[in-house]
């Protein structure tokens, strides 16, 4: 794990050059084609030693801000974090191990949510706690019904 190259050179130019080389004209389009792939894996695909997941995250947010679809972006990030922590879906039993996996995904989500949406994300987390999703729930993208219930689009 070197990773030394991720913070050198023109990061934005590199990111878009890689996205275009894979046949997409935006990061969002690239990510949408892989809706449940964790952020780190998106970064690995774009450059396994010179693209970082948080750079992909920043790029996706910038595009979402331009297209006024930030809420969708916030849901999209949660889908990827859940898929990373809970690849088999929402656990049936919340034992210590599963509780930690859920907590890790939701805590990380909070950290990756932009300031403008933090409060809404907090309410969404409270809703998930109050009414836990069914066992095996595994959102396949930002337009998942349950996700849109707890964090509906505002901009649209």
């Amino acid at each position, binding site marked *: *794990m070197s990773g030394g190259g991720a913070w050198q050179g*023109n990061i934005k130019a590199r990111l878009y050059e890689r996205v275009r080389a894979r046949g997409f004209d935006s990061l969002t389009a690239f990510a949408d084609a892989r809706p449940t792939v964790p952020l780190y894996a998106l970064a690995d695909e774009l450059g396994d*030693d010179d693209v970082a997941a*948080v750079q992909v995250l920043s790029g996706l947010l910038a595009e979402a801000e331009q297209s006024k679809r930030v809420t969708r972006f916030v849901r999209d990030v949660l889908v990827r974090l859940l898929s990373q922590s809970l690849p088999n879906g929402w656990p049936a039993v919340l034992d210590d191990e599963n509780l930690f996996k859920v907590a*890790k995904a*939701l805590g990380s989500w909070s950290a990756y949510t932009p300031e403008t949406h933090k409060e809404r994300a907090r309410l969404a987390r409270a809703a998930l706690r109050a009414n836990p999703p069914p066992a095996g729930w595994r959102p396949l993208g930002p337009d998942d019904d349950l996700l849109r219930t707890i964090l509906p689009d505002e901009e649209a």
Partner: protein
Amino acid sequence: MGDGAVGGGARSAALTRQAVLDATDEVKGSLRSVEAAFTKLAARPADPWGWSLTGVFTRYLDQGSKQVTWLQGAIGSATALTEGASEAGDTDMELGLLRMTGPKLQAAQFGTLLMAAWVDFLHLADAVLRNCPMCSTEKLFVDLHRVQGLMEPTITDLASLDPERVEAATTAMPELMGKLTREFDTLQRETRETMKLGGQIIAAMQAVEMVAMISTMKLALPRVPPSAPATLGVGLVMSSGGVMVGSRLVVSAEWVEMMRRLVQAGVISVPAVGAAVLIQGGQITMAQAHQDLPKGVREALGDSPEVRGMQVTGRAGAGMSDAPKHHVLPQEHREWFERRGFKGDMDIDQFCVRLEQAHHEAIHGGGDWKLGRTWPGEWNRRIMEALRDAEAEAGRMLTRNAVLDIVADRMKDYRIPMNFTPWRRR
């Protein structure tokens, strides 16, 4: 990612952990025999004429015992970190923790070697005091003082446990061992000549000779080479049994395998292992020399372009060694981490990484894209938010391992290599 070199899998982490445990046991064993030698020397009754390593010489014995204390501390730290590593859920974090044992193990290994050399000098001094009434006690005192002075800067560097200082001291060890060997040889030769002049009896002469001859007494110092070898490492050959010089086994194949593991996981550097092999092989020199091993031996020890590349960005890295250090676990939340088990050998000062300041080129990418600018503000905010909100979700305090698990995820997202270096307190 160079995961092949680091060895991504859990099995590889287990093998690395075993190698660290084996290396720790080896150092522990050596240190025990050094300690036993100090104790024995201190307890030796004076001969009928009252000569022994007492009086003004006591300080030289104390000097040894003092070093044993920090050496045991270093071994204790390495053991604590290895235990912490075995509990870490994330494989990369486990390897990161195992890499943290490297400077401590290295310092203990070479510090013990120096103390073994010091034991050799004390044995010789003891033999001189008891068997050579013609020899000047004052001269012996001064000679030992000079030897101590030769070892002192290296011991200070090793005892600092600072990765860069330990590494520099280690790679200079073959040269130091060369100087010590020559000092030992000179002291012995002068004693022999004085005894000849005084018409000493054969038995007394033999007592002094014995110190140099009997391997169980002589712990560390190799024989003085006839003349300094033109090129270091010449004559060292890798065989199925281990590294040989001529027909003599320098280090065993098991030792080589253990070191190969440690080198490939980034726990110990190739130059450090090379220094150990050179010393064991008696390949010491007076002069600062480019200390390199023959290619076959280097490869057996796990040297490869990937490993070298890793070390460039790792703790022994050339370019990165000047880059500023940053706390991965934010300092302003020290107490929060202490309450979750980040204390002692695992306190937050142990978890620092070197990061280049914002690269000039990155400016062209726009302000949001500079790691130097976003660190530590953005990192600190994000890591604390992820930890605090995870804790709120779990409804209980996170364990140290749970914290490390979340930190490992964030480090991967930022592509921060898990090469930790301690914060240097000045």
